[in-house]
């Protein structure tokens, strides 16, 4: 054995320009932490909101700059091939940030619930006098902003990671803040804490599988770089066994984050328990990040062995679409309903991914963005329907909202129609894109199941609409809060994008199409 001398190690060249967006996000998150430590209490909220939005807008601007300066066309690897700056990576980073900005608007809202949707002092025992006091009066803690910045930065790192180790680090970087954010609800704190415990334990469990898969693949290929794994996969003479076990374990970790059946079990509980703005963030941004990782692994590392694993992942996609849709039918809580719908939607994206050609990438990217905006607006609306205990999420409480709040009911109906895939909404164009890409890739069965499940999924959406318009409101019906400027902006953006991408999808499809080339 040759001892490795310190002198042999050369530091890899890092193209700071190319990874500037990630650096901006993580750097500003640190600024947020410092602000939290040193600023007086009254100043924290405006400063944190400002830092958070500025970081994301600056990151987005940098990404656009990179995309325009041809990084999409001439992709590069940097930091010792650990990070890829290519079309899909930039698109996904941009998507995470665009959706993140809207989610931040929801998080920062303070007029719907007095003092914001988050707990003021997490240390107070739930249900005590002090807890009631803090729920009534005190403004939210502002740690949520740096936490969300860390999560978004981790997601951006995740979608551009070019080796498994970086991917694992990024996975933890974006997961850990999310676990904490789930626990920060101002009301129903027990539910929120339980959600956090569940999410954390199951998340850690699945990431252990993920890293076990990495170890297997390292044993197989002798490297954790996607390119090396791809090379090792086509060179004969190596035992495929390790590779397939590794791939399966890896897929489990990713499918867990993407909420695919049978790794979806946490989703309804966590979506229900987490504060609704955080749920919105998870349903949109985390989904983008998870599928970014799935796309990169499948299209870069395992493209050549696709004939072996595609049927298996195909079955998962079918299960995800069908079970998500069926279980959505039985739900009685709006947040759980949206959770199951997000599971089914993960199946649709997976269908697009499995096309295994360029269309598959671009249509999945497109779908992720369309779904993200719609789901953000939907959860944003959920925050507005309230009674004295906080949000009234049980479906029976939504009866008759169409009469009490015609505008809210109208927008929600529009979003439901989009989820149901009615034309002239982004839900239709998105599904159309992924399904036609999958058909182009020969995945007819998947598409048939997809169409059937989307038909099935129309029923629960319709039920909500019927409930809102055709039933008498209860005597103690919840009130509809007047959205503050931030929530209004988030809702308006979500609804307008849903309409825009339904009528004129080529705006985004062209971008997705020109971005759909991974660097190998």
């Amino acid at each position, binding site marked *: 054995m040759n001892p490795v001398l310190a002198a042999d190690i050369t530091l890899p060249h890092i193209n700071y320009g190319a990874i500037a967006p990630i650096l901006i996000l993580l750097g500003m998150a640190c600024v947020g932490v410092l602000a939290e430590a040193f600023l007086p209490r009254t100043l924290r909220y405006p400063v944190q909101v400002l830092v958070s939005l500025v970081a994301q807008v600056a990151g987005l601007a940098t990404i656009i700059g990179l995309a325009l300066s041809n990084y999409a066309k001439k992709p590069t690897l940097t930091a010792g091939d650990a990070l890829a700056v290519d079309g899909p990576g930039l698109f996904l980073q941009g998507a995470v940030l665009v959706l993140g900005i809207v989610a931040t608007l929801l998080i920062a809202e303070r007029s719907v619930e007095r003092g914001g949707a988050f707990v003021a002092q997490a240390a107070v025992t739930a249900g005590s006098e002090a807890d009631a006091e803090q729920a009534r009066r005190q403004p939210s803690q502002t740690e949520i902003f740096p936490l969300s910045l860390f999560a978004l930065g981790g997601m951006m790192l995740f979608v551009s990671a070019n080796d498994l180790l970086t991917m694992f680090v990024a996975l933890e970087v974006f997961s850990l803040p999310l676990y904490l954010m789930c626990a920060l609800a101002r009301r129903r704190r027990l539910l929120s804490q339980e959600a956090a*415990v*569940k999410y954390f*334990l*199951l998340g850690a469990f699945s990431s252990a*599988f993920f890293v076990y898969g990495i170890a297997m693949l390292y044993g197989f290929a002798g490297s954790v770089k996607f390119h090396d794994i791809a090379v090792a996969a086509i060179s004969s003479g190596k035992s*495929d*066994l390790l590779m*397939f*076990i590794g*791939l*399966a374990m890896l897929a*489990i970790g990713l499918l*867990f984050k993407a909420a695919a*059946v*049978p*790794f979806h*079990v946490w989703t309804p*509980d966590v979506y229900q328990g987490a504060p609704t703005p955080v749920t919105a963030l998870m349903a949109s941004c985390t989904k983008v990040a998870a599928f970014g990782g799935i796309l990169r692994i499948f299209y870069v590392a395992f493209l050549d062995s696709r004939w*072996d*694993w595609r*049927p*298996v992942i195909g*079955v*998962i996609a079918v299960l995800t679409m069908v*079970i998500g849709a*069926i*279980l959505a039918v*039985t739900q009685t809580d709006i947040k759980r309903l949206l959770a199951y719908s997000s599971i089914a939607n993960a199946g649709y994206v997976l269908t697009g991914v499995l096309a295994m050609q*360029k*269309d598959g990438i*671009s249509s999945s990217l*497109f779908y992720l963005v369309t779904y993200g905006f719609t789901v953000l607006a939907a959860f944003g609306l959920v925050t507005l329907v309230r009674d004295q205990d906080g949000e009234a999420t049980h479906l029976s409480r939504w009866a008759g909202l169409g009469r009490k709040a015609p505008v809210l009911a109208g927008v929600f109906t529009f979003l439901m*129609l989009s989820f149901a895939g*009615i*034309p*002239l909404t982004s839900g239709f*164009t998105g599904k*159309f894109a992924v399904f*036609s*890409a999958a*058909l*182009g890739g020969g995945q*007819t069965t998947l*598409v*048939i199941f997809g*169409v*059937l499940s989307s*038909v*099935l999924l*129309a029923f629960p959406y*319709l039920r909500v609409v*019927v409930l809102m*318009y*055709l039933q008498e409101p209860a005597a103690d019906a919840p009130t509809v809060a007047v959205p503050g400027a931030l929530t209004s902006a988030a809702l308006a953006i979500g609804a307008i994008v849903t309409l825009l991408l339904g009528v*004129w*999808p*080529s705006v985004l*499809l*062209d971008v997705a*199409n020109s971005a759909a080339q991974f660097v190998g």
Partner: protein
Amino acid sequence: MTLAEQVQYQSATGALSSVWLLIAIPLASAAVLLLLGRKADRWGHILGCASIGASFVLGLWYFFTLRGLGHKAVSLDLFNFIQVGRFKVDWGILYDPLSATFVLLITGVGFLIHVYAVGYMKEDPGRRRFFGYFNLFASAMLLLVLGNSFLMTFIGWEGVGLASYLLISWYQDRPAAATAGKKAFLMNRVGDAAFLVAMFLMFANLGSTDFATVFNGVGALPHGVTLAMALLLLAGACGKSGQFPLQAWLPDAMEGPTPVSALIHAATMVTAGVYLIARSNPIFDATSLGQTIVVAVGAFTLLLGCVIGCAKDDIKRVLAYSTVSQIGYMFLAVGLGGGAYALGILHLLAHGFFKAGLFLGAGSVMHGMKDQTDLRRFGGLWRYMPVTWATVGLGYLAIIGIPPLSGFFSKDPIIDAAFARGGWQGWVFGLAALLGAGLTAFYMTRLFVLTFHGKKRWTDDIEHPHESPGVMKLPMILLAVGSVAAGGLLVYGGFTTWLEPVFGTTEVPGHEPNRAMMIGISLAVVLVGVAIAWLLFRRGTALVEQPARSPIVRAARENLYGDVFNETVFELPGKLLTRAAVFFDGKGIDGIVTGLAAIVGGSSSRLRRLQTGFVRSYALTILGGALVVVAALMAVKLG
């Protein structure tokens, strides 16, 4: 049409380059009416009528422009809609004789019914919103018939569906209306899913849903694919047009206001299925099995509609089942292929006039009778509502096919063509069509006699039924004129020749030499039906429902078990599947964990933990999934 012939559309120039206005005008009006809110209450109905009237005038102009053109099919590309890789869809319009015909039907009949609705909805506080939905419907329907690709048609298809659900559920305080709206939505979704899959098949095989590309490429496809496409399109058409097995929503849809029943659920939207099949004629021409199935569906549905129609006592339900049955005739005709496509469209137009007239007449009767719809509670109304009596009478004579009214010109050739199919199919389908004509005569006579003649059987609160106001009478009179004249005018005005560019032939199958005999036979059957009904019902009928003496009557009252059929075929498996999924998602897995824990810990107290949401049961699900994924990958690799 021979398959070698290429379908070509020229791009639109001159007057026709503004053909998109047809869709845009009602859409803009709908937007104004729905967005402006109460401010538009005073003049909303006028705008609603004016916009559809303007579309009608434009439609006429475009129609005459198209007549003057040599190449009678123009297309107009508006802008790029979806582009994914090699798939490309444009917003585009196809204006050819078929769509021109539909445009005139939709805007013409639509305008009359809009005017009628001004009077009918006068008391309704939501009249402005009603006109908004009505305009929305009109623009979606125009998009449906003007789109130049299946996708455009589909967008209109969903749009008319949406407007239809909104309007069926109009009387929100009636639970039946809400249920009917839901039912219509659900059954239509089944059909829509089939339509979607058909489009995906086109995408997968031909890379486009443009009419031109699909029709030119369909000849080269394997027969299985063509057949699948045809059957899926048929399923979509069945959903929208209320054909078997998706017919059950249409009669329930009569819960909406009567003008809605007349326009959407009689004259226009429900005929969209016929339009779809006629438009996709190259696909159906390429698969004779597919055509036979269309014919069979049509023949079966027309009998089903007739039989149920005989057993119903609600005037609008009878008309609704009559619609189901008449659309069955249209399906039968377009399924026969060749020149019979034109016969189907001809019957569609004629039906649009007389059925709209009949519905408006029914609405007028209800208007005068305090919204009574029970046939047993009418009687002797001809004296009080002479105009309604006359217009409904003309519509009635038209639908049963008395010469020289329009039904005679449109229905008899279909019966003739069905017999001309030859072989056992000719006999089966021909006899079904003939029997249907007799039954139609029976139940329509029953409806007419029970409503307008015989003794008064009114409820006590009605003293003096009144005729409707002029704004409602005028459309009824115009539609009656249409029911009288449309058939003959169209047949002698060269309607089949006009449609030749679309269907490629004018040759109608039929027994030329025996035509007179066929006409004689079918007239005889019709007269027998009329006579029986007149003898049975001229003295009125019992005021309460009689016990059903035969299984047929019982079955007919139960809508021939259509709802039971739906429950068993669609709902039951759905429910079972849901239960199974819920079980395995929660309780099942959890049961395993509980069992495992009990085995390991040897304690039975675990049973109290039989509820979902345990971290450990979730972890077990994940582990189970992981093992299955690994095992499946191994199996694929090694197997």
